[in-house]
Structure formats: C-alpha cells, structure tokens
C-alpha cells in the first residue's frame, strides 16, 4: 500500500487563505469578497496586502453574489467567500441567475461545509450544497481533501474561466498531499492501486479512506483509493477504469447521499457499467451539535464506516 505521511494537521480553510495570499501576489485581477467572516475564512493576509481588492459586504450574502457577478464585468476574478450554508442554499437564486445562467467568472468559496463545523449545529452544517451546486448548468464543483490541495485548488480555479464552487471545511485534518502537486480540475487522483474494491472519496473522507484501505490490507483486501476532488465535471474514465477492474465501489463524502458524489458516480455506473455500490454519506438527515469526531462517528462518516461499507459491497460482487 502506498504510504502517505501526515505533514501536520491543518484546516482546509487555511489552505484557502494561503491560496488567496498567493493569488493576491500573482494575479492582479483576483478580488476577494466576504460576508462578515474574514477570520473564519483566513483571508487576513490577502486583505492586508491588497486592501483595495477586498470587499467587505457585511451580513448580506445575496448582495455579495450580485456584486461578485458585476465585478466580472470589467475583467475581475471575484472570490466570494462565506460559510457553505450561506454561500449556497441561502443565495441559490442569486447564484443561478446572476452567476451561472449569466456565465459569470465567479468563484464561490465555501468554508465550514458538512458536519465537521461541529458545535454550532445543524443551522450551520449544510449537507446539501454539493447537490445544489452540481445541478446548476456550467458550474464546476470542487471539494479538496486537505490543506495543500485546497491551496493548490484555490490557485487553479483562478485560471479556469467560469463559475466554480470550491468547498472546504473548518477542522484541522491530516495534510498529506505533496506541497508542490499541481491541481488539475476534473482529473481524479489515484492514491492507492488495488484490485478488490474501489473507494471513491472526496473532501475530508479521502484521508479516512486511506486509513480504511490500510486496515483492509491487513485483512487481505486490496482497496483502490481514488481522490475525487472534482465532483463536476466528474472523471468518468478514471472511475470506470477502476471499477471494471475491481467490480465494486464505495463512495465516501461528508454530504447527504441524495445529490452528492455517490449519486453522480451511480449515474456513470448505471449508464456504462452497472456495478454494486455502497454509499458512505449522511442518510437524508440534518446534523446536530457535537465535536467533529463525535459527529463523524455518529453519522457514519469515518474510516470504520468506510471499512464496513467495503465488507458489505464485497459480498454483493
């Protein structure tokens, strides 16, 4: 099994902040917007170094999305940032009409996605955002797995013309992506080659999948682990190539099983290569208060849940 070293736990939102710092220094067209959550989004350095390119909109996310759309008219590349809940569901129609349908080059950057926001509870824990965003025609949806990948994804989306939803989170998690790895939108990353089962994971669940694969290896099960950092456009070929070899698949995501990565994978498989699949995801429920670890345990989103799903899907081959 390929070994991955945790270079030290960090939050993915800090990866976003680091990416913004770099973009501030390298791309004069990049501008940043935030709705009263500067500290949470870790963009203090960008603001300090580029005060004229930062727009504090206050607690007014609808206005933020519209202003971001307008800033593109004149060649700016706006990165509009807030919590995932307020960056998607709260402003769906603004994103739909003023950004997606209007083909605007806006980057919607969403922190505190999923359950791992923790103690604030379900009002702030969105588990539907991937679904909301992937349904919009023309929207690219990216959910990187760790600090390094979030930083490189932030930098990469500035070079991509078109609306992007970039999803990341709050807790400090393992940081194992090579620091110099270039982020390629839509290109799945093979993390561990295997022959018995394919694990397709996104976001925080990628590291959990690696832990699960290690444990499975000790049980004599060879798991192929692929990081699906881009949910749309989905890397159909990488998925099909792997599944044709292994014959079964587990998808893993910090999101509702309705509308998430799992359903996108199921569509590809049903169309091209029907295959047994198990879904590690929340089961059409809201979250609740708790520590990230407690919540991931209770809602079945950790390495143990992935391992169980693998054992289950193997029996269906």
């Amino acid at each position: 099994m390929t070994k991955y070293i945790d270079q030290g736990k960090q939050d993915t939102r800090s990866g976003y902040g680091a990416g913004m710092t770099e973009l501030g220094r390298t791309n004069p067209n990049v501008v940043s917007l935030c709705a009263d959550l500067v500290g949470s989004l870790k963009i203090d350095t960008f603001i300090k170094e580029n005060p004229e390119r930062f727009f504090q909109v206050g607690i007014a996310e609808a206005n933020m999305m519209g202003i971001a759309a307008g800033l593109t008219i004149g060649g700016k590349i706006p990165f509009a940032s807030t919590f995932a809940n307020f960056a998607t569901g709260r402003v769906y129609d603004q994103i739909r009409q003023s950004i997606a349908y209007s083909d605007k080059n806006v980057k919607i950057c969403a922190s505190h996605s999923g359950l791992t926001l923790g103690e604030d509870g379900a009002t702030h824990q969105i588990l539907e955002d991937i679904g909301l965003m992937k349904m919009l025609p023309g929207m690219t949806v990216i959910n990187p797995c760790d600090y390094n990948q979030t930083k490189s994804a932030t930098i990469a989306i500035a070079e991509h013309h078109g609306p992007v939803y970039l999803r990341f989170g709050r807790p400090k998690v393992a940081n194992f992506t090579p620091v110099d790895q270039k982020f390629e939108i839509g290109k799945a990353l093979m993390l561990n080659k295997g022959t018995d089962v394919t694990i397709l994971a996104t976001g925080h669940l990628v590291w959990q999948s690696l832990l699960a694969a290690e444990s499975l290896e000790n049980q004599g099960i060879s798991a192929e682990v692929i990081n699906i950092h881009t949910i749309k456009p989905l890397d159909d070929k990488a998925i099909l190539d792997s599944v044709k070899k292994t014959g079964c698949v587990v998808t893993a995501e910090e999101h509702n099983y309705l509308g998430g990565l799992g359903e996108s994978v199921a569509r590809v498989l049903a169309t091209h290569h029907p295959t047994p699949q198990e879904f590690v995801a929340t089961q059409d429920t809201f979250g609740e208060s708790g520590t990230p670890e407690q919540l991931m345990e209770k809602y079945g989103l950790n390495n143990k849940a992935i391992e169980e799903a693998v054992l289950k899907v193997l029996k269906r081959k």
Partner: protein
Amino acid sequence: MPNTQELQDLVIQVRRDILRMVHKVNSGHPGGSLGCTEFFVALYNEIMDLKDGFDMDGIGEDLFFLSNGHISPVFYSVLARKGYFPIEELNTFRLIDSRLQGHPTTHERLPGVRVASGSLGQGMSVAIGAALAKKLNGDDHLVFSLHGDGELQEGQNWEAIMYAAGNKVDNLIATVDRNGQQIDGGTEDVLPIGDVAEKFKVFGWDVLEIENGNDLEQVIAGLNEAKSRTGKGKPVCIVMKTEMGNGVDFMMHTHAWHGKAPSDEQLATALEQNPETLGDY
C-alpha cells in the same frame, strides 16, 4: 447627437415595436415597457457614452443594467435601433431558438445584455459590482441601472442600497420606475412601498425626482442632473414617475397590461395612436 424631434420619432417607433413584439407571440410585458420608453431612448441616444460594438467588459464606456427584466421589449427595441443587433431580429422575440428570450439573458450572447434578469431584486447588486470594477480599472465612466418600484419589495435591494451608500459607490445612477403598479394591483395596495425618495435618502443616497418620466425633455434633464451629481461620494438615485402603458390610451391608468398582449383589434387601435415614424421592422 440626435435632436429632440428625432428622439420623439424614435420613442413612437419603439412603442410600435413593443406592441408588435408582444402581439405576435401573445405574451410579454407591454405596460412597463411603454412606461419606460422615453427613459430608454434618452439613455441610449443622449445620455450614455457608448463605444461602437459590444464587449462584455465594457471598459471605457458607460454601462446599463436592467433589473426588472420583464420589460425586455423596450430594452430589445432600443438596443436593436441603436445598432447592437439587426432590427429584424425583433421578429424572433420569445420564439424558440431566439437570442431575444422572454427575459434578457447573456446565455444566447445577445449584444447589449451583460447579465440575466427577471428574477427580481438582483440588478442593483450587479450594477454595484460593475461600478466597483470601473473604479478598480481607473475607468471614470458611469453605471446606470433601472428598477421597478414593486421590485423594491425584494430584500436584496436594501442590502445593495445600504452597501452602495456605505461604500461611496458614487459612479452609479440607479433609477426607480415609480409607476405605482405591480401584477396584483397598485403597489400601495399589494405591499406599501411608501416614499421611495425618502427611503433612499435616509440610506445615504443623493436622490432626485423626475416628475413626469414620460416627458422626454424632463427625462433628459433629470438624467443629466444625475450625471452631474456623480463622483461626489454618494450613489445617485432617480425616482422617476411614469405611467404604465403610456402612449396607448386603453393601457394607461391600470395594472391590467403588466403582462398581457393586445388582441388584433387592440393592436390596430394602439398602432393608430402611434403612427409609424422610422419604419417598422
């Protein structure tokens, strides 16, 4: 620059275009379109500094955003007659495979349109963003926007109104079409909007009023006055009183023609009241 008579002729011709467009497809919004005809004609032919041709970024020219997108007929007619696209294309309004969608969009790449609108209340935020981009680019041109009065019931407007004043977006001129009507009736009956000018003022805008937005000279004077007030630390609002359905007697003084097309007979009557000036498409 065209003289007043030429602009008046264009107003009449645009009214004919609006009526014929909505009649042909038996759908669309003639009332608000007719009420804003003088505004659009003045804006595009007298007020705005425009480059030849169209590019999305619009650097080095004034920009316009239509927030109440349902009055697309007047927007399309004025854009076509300004040369943004062939006048004959007005024939395709609301038809399948057309660039002239029911509400304006950029998706079909219609020259002159920079954002989709129709879902109400979003245009002012977009106009603010474009105005901020102009400031970043060192472009001293202006951004104009138009909003329905009923549209002010959408909360996003007030986020935008607060932002523009608080951040001194003083290269923006937002006009509110105060026709007092919306789909379900008078604005003050559906949900009272009250004193629009006073509301913008207390939010920190510089406000002026156009008493008769269907008087071309008043509209031009008001827009010029608004231009003179830009660059002074405050966004500028024009509260423009108009008559929905203006220029067609049976469409005036009612909200009934908000989103309804005339019959064959009604069209004939309406066109008689607005004899051809520059040639129908």
